[in-house]
């Protein structure tokens, strides 16, 4: 019957659940729980923390980070083209030019919007 054929998947699910639960619980149960003052302190690359914990960073940091993230990842589309550069020939080149153009338009947009302004 069907059930027997699906048995491997059942095992798979059970395994998944077991592993996930075990690891999650292990983290909670076995992990050292020192809730000292030092532990509560934010980690700042090993330096003693300055200022308040709830101190707010300038929104510029986030803005830049997010823009970096998205533009960085878009590069992924250039890889297939780069790998098959010769076979794709002019057609591929034009396609990629379009792609870069679109990225440029968005960059201009971001720029004009002032997201790159630091001050």
């Amino acid at each position, binding site marked *: *019957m*069907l*059930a027997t054929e*699906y048995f491997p*998947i*059942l095992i798979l*699910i059970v395994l998944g659940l077991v592993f996930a639960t075990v690891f999650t619980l292990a983290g909670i149960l076995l992990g050292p729980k020192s809730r000292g003052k030092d532990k509560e302190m934010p980690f700042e690359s090993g330096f003693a923390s300055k200022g308040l914990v709830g101190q707010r960073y300038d929104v510029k940091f986030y803005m830049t980070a997010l823009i970096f993230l998205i533009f960085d990842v878009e590069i992924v589309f250039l890889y297939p083209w780069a790998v098959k550069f010769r076979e794709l020939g002019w057609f591929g080149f034009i396609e990629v030019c379009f792609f870069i153009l679109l990225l440029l338009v968005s960059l201009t947009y971001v720029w004009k919007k002032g997201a790159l302004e630091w001050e």
Partner: protein
Amino acid sequence: MHQIWLIPAFPLIGCILNGLFGKFFGKRFVSFVGPLAVGFAFLHSLVLFFTMLNTKGHALHETLYTWMETGSLHLSMGFQVDQLSGLFLLIITGVGFLIHVYSIGYMHEEEGYYRYFSYLNLFVFFMLLLVLGDNFMVLFVGWEGVGLCSYLLIGYYFEKKSAADACKKAFIVNRIGDFGFLSAAMLIFITFGTLSFDRVNEAAPDLLVPGGILATLITLFLFLGATGKSAQIPLYVWLPDAMEGPTPVSALIHAATMVTSGLYMLARLSHLFVLAPATMNLIAIIGALTALMAATIAITQTDIKRVLAYSTVSQLGYMFLAMGVGAFGVGIFHVMTHAFFKALLFLCSGAVIHSLHHEQDMQKMGGLKNKLPVTYLTMLIGTIAIAGIPPFAGFFSKDEILWKTWSASHPILWLMGFLTAILTSFYMFRLIFLTFHGESRVDPHTAKHIHESPVSMLAPLAVLAVLSIFGGFFGVPHVLHFLPNGIELYFEGFYAEVPVGHGSVIAEIVLMVMSVAAALIPVWIAWKLYAGNLDQVNKWKAQFKIPYALSWNKYYIDEIYDAAIIQPMKKCSTIVLWKWIDVGIIDRIVHLSGDLARVSGGMLRGLQNGILQQYALIFAMGTVGILWYLFFLPY
């Protein structure tokens, strides 16, 4: 082409004009457009009616356009004028026109004058669709539409709480009826593969086993639908409360037209109904029971409109009785005469109420006959007609129903009908005597201002009075054969044949004499009791406490429904589902059991607690559940 579509188009145009521009152009415009729209429809109906008569036996068909075509189903905006719908057309547009004219005077001081006429036109439009349609779809459009309009018009005085409650009640009760209707339509579609009346009627004898389960089930559902719209046991409770609407509305919707749509449907599908004798018997029994019960309630009511409302329920019971014994044509005949005299009675009561500044209690009337002579005279004509005193309209139709019942060998049902006739005559004359005779019990302050109504209100009364007098001659009984029985000729070959036992001529004459006596004797009793002072009545009230209380409180039906249905529902509120449905539905119950609602706020609502992770959890559980069901649940 006969341009049948023009008939409903006139009131629709009227409705749109009044609704959109009525407010800006003022009352003059509205009182011109509203009645005129219906008037045109009436004229066109007349033309088509006579065209139809000339092509005897052939209905006028017209397909406006194809509404929808899917698969085997072909639905069109199809209209037909045949014997049945032709008659209804004339009643709706004719009586409707008179009531529109009447409304000009009656509603003159109302603020939402244009709104009222707009609704009323809309109602006429839907009612015309209902009777003109040649398939279930168009009928259903009309069916829902008239329900909506009735709902809007009952709640017209929405600032009154009783009106708002009444409109809710009408709505809910009608939903039960609609459920029946829709189920029946669905079954019919599954069985016949068509929704056209003609084809259903044609195919019924071939496709359905006479007396079979399917035939019985379909007709029972249809009848359930009919009881909802036409106010029969057990769904009649909404009609008396519907009197919260303006009086002309009661006359048009809740006496002459909408409440007869259930009967229309029965008559329309007569070929289907005769295949289910069990349903037919049930219809006859329910009809007779409703007639008798409503009549006994009407005896003690003191609100003038309520007496008339129960009288309507009772008369509708008569019509169902006729249908049930297979006398479809006679039932429809009574629909016609009833439309005349009941509309007349309602309009007269409206005139009385109007001149007494919205006093409806008969205990505060009396002695009005000199002050309102025209109203008195017309109302008296209406009363004679409904009481069944020859030669007024009611006599012919009612006597015919009783005779058909007798000859179909249902003596018990006949007896119930006969008793109802006695009671009818009694409570109607009681109404007349209490209102117009005896000493004036009117509040002295109002008494000074009593005046006869304007011409726009009296003219319709006069026309209807004439119709109530002569309307019966369309169907003169056989024994009296000084005129041919018009109704029988008119409907010849239209309805399904029901084998009717033929009683002897002697029996017919004897029964007729009995009916006349049953109509006349109560008049004398009512005169004795109510025309002078009311001492004797009060003495009897004290003596017959229990029957009186039963009748006065309408057999506690509302209370019984409350105790049997609403209270247990409230008790069951811990059972979550009921609670949910209730809480949303009926505000009253919300108020009564506010805290229980919170207790049972229940599972679903608990699930929707706004916490993101709970949603994710349910999502994941759903996934696991689906996968488990699909792949791991053993067969």
